[in-house]
């Protein structure tokens, strides 16, 4: 054996580490990195309190990337998305209920005269229709009587124009579990809610459940990654996340202008709650609210 050989191995990897040492000035986990790791691993190895909730061997685990509908120029290369894990035996509606999107929380209307009324009307309660689209089939959420078949217009459109999508069908989302579907890994599918809020869904992995995974059925769909969206801060205190946006505001430095709830009320109303000055006020839900 060559005497030198003993010292040669691992030199390359070691050199790379040394180079890293030299170039890095502050070697400290940033907040985002810590959070990402936290999120990825927070449920690992968890077991349910109740044995009936224990996931059995042989269960399938799907990894889904659900993309946000926002298309900003800065997201040209990196489309923001969240990653969830779902079980093969879970209903599609369980996934639907777990997807958080600002458009579900959007509050319609102008509330400058009665700001206290605002938070009670959330879009999610108003417009409950939604569908998934997988492999030529629309899975419509029909759990509530007020749910509409959002896919009907699409199917009618495709049929009337002979678009080459002949076999589009629509079924009830609540009747299907993921094991029922035949899916392509890496193929872009769709989740649509609030009429036109469209999220691309990509299945990135399917595997058997493992002993070290979270085995508590109740914790699925399990969110393991999400994109941090930057939040809009209040223009006054520059501290809290904006809850209101105003237009044509005689008291504001710009149009539109964002305020947190406290600053908004202090500036725009007197002690008795009377409106001061001219402005239009809309409740604002920040995309970063789920951070």
């Amino acid at each position: 054996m060559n005497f030198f050989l003993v010292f040669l191995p691992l030199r390359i990897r070691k050199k790379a580490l040394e180079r890293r040492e030299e170039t890095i000035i502050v070697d400290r986990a940033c907040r985002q990195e810590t959070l990402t790791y936290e999120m990825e691993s927070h449920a690992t190895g968890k077991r349910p309190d109740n044995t009936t909730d224990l996931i059995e061997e042989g269960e399938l685990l799907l990894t889904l990337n659900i993309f946000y509908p926002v298309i900003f120029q800065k997201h040209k290369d990196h489309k923001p998305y969240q990653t969830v894990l779902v079980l093969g035996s879970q209903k599609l509606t369980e996934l639907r209920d777990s997807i958080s999107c600002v458009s579900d929380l959007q509050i319609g209307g102008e509330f400058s005269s009665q700001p206290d009324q605002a938070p009670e009307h959330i879009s999610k309660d108003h417009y409950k229709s939604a569908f998934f689209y997988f492999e030529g089939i629309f899975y419509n959420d029909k759990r509530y009587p007020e749910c509409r078949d959002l896919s009907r217009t699409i199917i009618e459109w495709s049929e009337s124009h002979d678009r080459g999508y002949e076999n589009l069908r629509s079924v009830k989302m609540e009747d299907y579990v993921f094991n029922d579907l035949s899916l392509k890994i890496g193929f872009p599918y769709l989740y649509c809610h609030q009429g036109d809020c469209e999220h691309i869904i990509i299945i990135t992995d399917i595997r058997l459940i493992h002993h070290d995974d979270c085995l508590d059925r109740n914790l699925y769909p399990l969110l393991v990654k999400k994109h941090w969206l930057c939040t809009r801060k209040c223009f006054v205190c520059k501290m809290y996340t904006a809850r209101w946006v105003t237009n044509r505001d005689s008291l504001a430095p710009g149009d539109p202008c964002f305020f947190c709830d406290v600053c908004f009320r202090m500036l725009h109303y007197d002690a008795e709650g009377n409106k001061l000055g001219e402005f239009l006020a809309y409740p604002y839900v920040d995309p970063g609210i789920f951070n």
Partner: protein
Amino acid sequence: MSAVPGLREDCEELLGAFLQADTVRFERFAELWRERRFHTIFYGKMRALQRKKLTEKTLDLAQQYFLPPYYFQIRVGALYLLYGLYNAQRCQPKQKIRIALKDWPEIQRFHLDLLDCQHYDAAYILRKLRLARAFHFTAMPKLLTYRSKKKIEEEHFKEEFRDPCNRVNNLITNDILEELMNIHNHYQKMKCVISADKSQPDKALSLIKDDFVVNLKDLALEHQEWHQNRLKLLQSVTETDEAEDRKKEEALLKSEGSERAGALARIKYRSYTAPVEVSKSRRHRQVQFESSEPGSSCGKSPSRSKKPSRGPQTPRRRGSSEVRGEMQLAKETVTQHIGMPIIIEEDSDGGELSPPKSRRRR
């Protein structure tokens, strides 16, 4: 998988050393591992997230060499490497080795091969990994990740570890010849039965050439001989620089890059000299292949010894689509045909000699 600097080189260096050691014993691998202090591969200041990523990539890298088309020996080495890496990793819980659905039958076959060749140490390690629940059984080999185009880089795996396949040998294997021989005998008997003279078939039934199998075998032998001569030639060309008159030859052969070709040649030569076991089920009707070529010594008949061998035995594949046909037809007397023309991929002349498309198993 974006490259972790130095990782691939280090893993390949270790596997290369194992290949050089010309063994599949775990003992030897462990020595090589320790000499290199390979467990330190996961050392260095790393935070949890980074550690997880690095481990993931390392296992992913080693796993690739565990599957075909690499040498049996490299695959065993990769198995030991996976075992070492899996246990040396510092993640909690441990990162798992991804095994795709399509690869699992191949691994089971590999396991049976290990048992057949009595490489019990390797079989034990594989079993150990399974019992430690070191595998994730996945639909696809890799977890999909999306990046912008510019960052995607091609991966280059070490060509030298690749099991070279000889198409002719792949098609005409011992199994095939045995099978053909059997079918032919059976056919002959059937013809006898329906013939007037029961000891010999009627002339009218003589529709194919009687010596078909022998001819096929001879052709295969010839091809193999030619192939080996060519390899030897390659080898000698790269190893000696004195031969001026070989320069031309070299230029011809150099197309693949002579260094690599030389390495391949050495490796190929070794794989042909590895003994082959005959599966038990077939032993009772094993056909002895002998060269019928006049003037040449006989081909070695396959080794029947069941003693555990210390050398890296290349097992016979069963049922796999890539049946490797080391036919063990190696000739002792190899003449150096320097002036021999280089013909790429011979075609069999007779139409009836075309090898069967599908293999029957019973």
